[in-house]
């Protein structure tokens, strides 16, 4: 496989997201880059991947192109099951979703995410500095998917010690069994994919840990872009850059209209 030399930050996120997905598993696909990553996985190493969309489609082949919404008509064609939101989330709460892809504007060291508001909480909750879209299905996926994959652009303003608002709970305060004690299900955040690295969570402390860095980054450069102290895995490797073929598939086959993967 020839390595690509002109891939973008979003493209490497997509490739990393795809590679984390395992074949024949069920992935609850959030809107945006996760849709591109799931489609790439399905077209490469994971043809048996089973996508579930919160608007209700279960197991579509996704042969009519990239959906631009998780309720898009393209998610339903050829699916095995189609209900509504309650049906999709009930299945997730039951344990049918092996992976869930979630994102946010802010993340903390335990993988908690914010996609609700920026500002002082709770004082300015009703008049926030910046109002974000809100949870959508992210909070539910966080509470009930077996493992979650987080996507957050790497930037000091986004990797914070304390979030403005916890929309999608991760490992909470990192204490042992915190999720179980809070009544949630699943093992919580599994990987964080950023524009600089792939991170996981330390087994004992549940703190975010650098697992692989993207080409051109160092452990130090990743830490420097992070607003809290990161742990570092024993053997940090460099993530293979996307291949020319992967980049071509993203640009030509999957998202030719740049619905989510912008070229600029």
């Amino acid at each position, binding site marked *: 496989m020839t390595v690509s030399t002109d891939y973008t930050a979003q493209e490497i996120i997509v490739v990393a997201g795809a590679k984390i997905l395992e074949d024949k598993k069920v992935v609850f696909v959030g809107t945006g880059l996760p849709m591109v990553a799931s489609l790439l996985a399905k077209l490469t190493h994971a043809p048996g991947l089973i996508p579930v969309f919160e608007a209700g489609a279960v197991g579509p082949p996704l042969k*009519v192109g990239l959906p631009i919404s998780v309720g898009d008509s393209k998610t339903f064609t050829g699916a095995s099951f189609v209900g509504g939101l309650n049906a999709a989330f009930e299945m997730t709460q039951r344990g049918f979703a092996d992976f869930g892809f979630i994102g946010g504007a802010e993340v903390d060291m335990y993988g908690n995410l914010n996609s609700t508001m920026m500002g002082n909480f709770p004082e300015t909750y009703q008049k926030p500095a910046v109002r974000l879209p809100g949870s959508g299905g992210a909070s539910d996926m*966080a509470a009930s998917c077996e493992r979650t994959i987080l996507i957050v652009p790497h930037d000091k303003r986004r990797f914070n010690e304390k979030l403005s608002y916890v929309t999608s709970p991760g490992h909470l305060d990192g204490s042992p069994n915190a999720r179980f004690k809070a*009544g949630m299900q699943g093992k919580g955040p599994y990987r964080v994919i950023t524009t600089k690295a792939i991170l996981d969570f330390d087994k004992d402390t549940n703190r975010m840990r650098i697992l692989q860095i993207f080409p051109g980054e160092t452990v130090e450069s990743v830490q420097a872009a992070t607003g809290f102290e990161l742990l570092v895995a024993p053997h940090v490797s460099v993530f293979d850059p996307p291949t020319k073929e992967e980049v071509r598939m993203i640009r030509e086959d999957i998202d030719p209209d740049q619905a989510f993967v912008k070229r600029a």
Partner: protein
Amino acid sequence: METNTEMYWTGLSPDEARELLVNKDKSMKDKRMTLKQAVAQFIKNGDNVGIGGFVNIRQPIAITHEMVRHGFKDLTLSWQSAGMAPDYLAGAMMLDPNHFSIKRVEMAYWAHEAFGLSPMFRYLAERGMIEIEDWSNYNMSARFKAGAMGLPFIPTRGPLGSDIVKTSRTKVIDCPFTSRPIALLPASNPDVAIIHVQAADMYGNCIIRGTDATCAEIAMASAHTIVTCEQLVEHELVARNPKDVKIPFLAVDAVIEVPFGSYPGACRRHYYFNGEHIRQFHAAANAMRKDGSSALLQAYYDENIFGVECFEDYIAKFPVKKLLADQKAESFNCERLA
């Protein structure tokens, strides 16, 4: 936000919702009327309005246009994820809160996925002009479901561990069977549901294609339901496959045939998104969000909503070739013989 953590019912309490339904004429009668009549008859100032569809899919756009023309005060809007429908209502409030105003929203997501954030939501929220109660998609869907089931609450895992618990009327209890925490969400019983579907008969039996979203739950939970449909069909055609019916006539008060009723959003089997028009509308609102200049947004409303008699006139403004292209795009998603 302190008020959200105290318990009170927005819309109807479960007992009020029950009483209204018990006393309602649930007979199988012809419910066709104009959209103007339906909006005037079934929506009032101060109502909690449940909005169907999902983000920009099968949203009740034609109904929101008519609501804007009519004008309403102090509405509470409830939905899971929505885009253009609350945008149209919120844009009207930005232009003239004396003509149209939203008091409160209860929802999970107000934005547009690939089409970006909602400038209207940012405008109203960042100025503190509306009360907000954040929930998740499943939370809102389950709240409507509880309302549709005649229950005062429903348990979910959804908001556990999140600040949604703190900014909403969620109550967390220890499960009496497992001793682990579980969230109880208060039912949502809106005063009126606004729903767009692919097909309906004159009694209100509705066929939905693609995602059911939370439309059946919203309709069953609400005191009244206004349905627009792409296609009004004979009851006999519907009754041949009753399992295709997702909302039974019992839950519906008004049925109006409105082709392109979710446009510029998408409607499975009928048309795909008109992203250009969505962006054009947002650009107008974004200008006002950034510097307060309402000219572009006012022009958009004057041209497309206030300046027309009905939704058909709005649709008629689009170039025929664009409408055909959006129908064609959907036919690729969903190939079928005419």
